[in-house]
């Protein structure tokens, strides 16, 4: 998706260049075809593979069974409502987690003292498996959406904080000197140098956070409550409804993909100036 491959092919180019481009587009066409072929093979394998291999439907239901179950849950259950509730939790948890992580990152990045005081706790919390806090939050706040949002906040917070902190620390000091020469105030240095400088790193943090938010929400939903896709997943599991489990997993994945794509689109809109960014820097 985010690979820098030239998608637009301009027809009126110099001969050798257009030859090179049509070659590139031929390669691309082949890639598209192969991808489509692989998808069809995968779906066909899911549909006809399990019975052929003698795998029981309660282990891996056929694709059509999963689809039927999805329709069933949509019509008879409240699949849409559960999906929207999970989406809401992901959005709120992601938003608050990013905001808090970013603010904390900038504060620590600009204050050596704060960083020294806070870093042991940050390190400890960063190593702690954040989803393990989900049961605790459920004990505190009960079977509602608060524990889900809190878990998402907690899990999103750190990658954003670390990314922002590291990049604020790495600002080219001569750029700061340049601003100081013009007698910039501390606030001007932040808003005109440090903040824009850190934006690419902030967005790498947001990209990681987008997928982590879904994990946090899902785990907290599994722990307790009866609304949300995680709760539906637990219910299906309790009823030995394997197809239902697959339905919720697929929907959770779709939510994760959507969140990730939205972050990428926002990043492209904000970082218009940037030269092509490498594709695989998800780990940021």
């Amino acid at each position, binding site marked *: 998706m985010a690979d820098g491959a030239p998608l637009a092919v301009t027809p009126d180019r110099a001969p050798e260049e257009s030859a090179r481009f049509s070659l590139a587009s031929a390669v691309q066409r082949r890639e598209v075809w192969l991808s489509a072929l692989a998808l069809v093979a995968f779906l066909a394998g899911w549909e006809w593979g399990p019975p052929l291999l003698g795998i029981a439907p309660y282990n891996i239901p056929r694709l059509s069974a999963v689809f039927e179950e999805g329709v069933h849950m949509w019509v008879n259950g409240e699949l849409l409502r559960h999906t929207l509730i999970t989406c809401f939790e992901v959005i709120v948890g992601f938003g608050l987690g990013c905001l808090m992580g970013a603010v904390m990152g900038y504060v620590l990045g600009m204050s050596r003292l704060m960083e020294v005081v806070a870093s042991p706790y940050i390190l400890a919390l960063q190593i702690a498996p954040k989803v393990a806090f989900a049961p605790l939050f459920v004990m505190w706040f009960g079977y509602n959406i608060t524990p889900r949002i809190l878990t998402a906040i907690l899990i999103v917070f750190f990658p954003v904080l670390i990314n922002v902190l590291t990049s604020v620390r790495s600002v080219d000091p001569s*750029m700061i000197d340049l601003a100081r020469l013009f*007698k910039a105030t501390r606030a001007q240095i932040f808003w005109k140098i440090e903040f824009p400088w850190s934006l690419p790193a902030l967005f790498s943090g947001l990209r990681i956070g987008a997928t982590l938010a879904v994990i946090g929400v899902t785990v907290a939903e599994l722990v307790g409550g009866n609304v949300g896709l995680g709760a539906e997943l637990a219910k299906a599991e309790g009823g030995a409804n394997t197809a239902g489990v697959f339905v919720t997993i697929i929907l959770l994945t779709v939510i994760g993909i959507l969140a990730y794509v939205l972050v990428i689109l926002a990043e492209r809109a904000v970082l218009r100036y*940037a030269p092509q960014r490498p594709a695989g820097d998800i780990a940021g």
Partner: protein
Amino acid sequence: MLRLSFKEVSRFFPPVRGRTGSEGVLAVEGVSIDIADGEVVALIGPSGCGKSTLLNLASGLDRPSQGEIFVDGEPVSGPNEHVAFMLQKDLLLPWRTIRKNVEFGQEIRRMDPAQREERAQKFLHRYHLDGFANHYPHELSGGMRQRAALARTMMMDPDVLLLDEPFSALDAQTKMVLQQDLAQTVAEEKKTAFLITHDLVEALALSDRVLVMSRRPGRIIEEIPVDIPGRDDPMRRRQHEKIGPMTARLMSLLDIGKVEQTV
């Protein structure tokens, strides 16, 4: 009238605590320089002799350990609007267009936006950047980027230009074109400039006087007036018959050829 003056300036960088073998560095010692209004003075010296330290002191980013520096007769106690800096690195902000980069200094000083834009337009035009106002720095060549940095510097209308090897990252031809642009601007606007360079011919082509600095701790060991006409036309000045012998003199002062250069 003296625009820039160093009075017995020394700068000692204390040892870094906790680092073994760190003794501190006396970068420059007892340096006195007077630069009159409209004068262009070049400073050459071996690598690491404290040339850039002097510029940092003049700009107010750094403070001397001893002595004092005056700009327009006022002691320098921090960055001030009389001086502007231009470095080897263009320091264009990658997230700003060229126009916004050129406006950067005046934006910080809160110049009225309409006036600022008009002024930026003028400087973009003067440095042949009209077509690139809305480009981002990474889309420009090194020479154009440095011209944008020059436009940003001149936007501030400084009395004194501090130039720290401004052209050393450029290829030979681009360098000559930019030297020409700079020399003409300085002559037309009657600016005072203090130029640090490694390039001996550049020093001779652009300045009224060349100061030679010793190895660390840096002291001024020689002052050579450049009595060649045409300071506003370095392209012609480069070809003057005196340039050869004067370069040779500078080389011998810097021990180039005798000792291997550690650049």
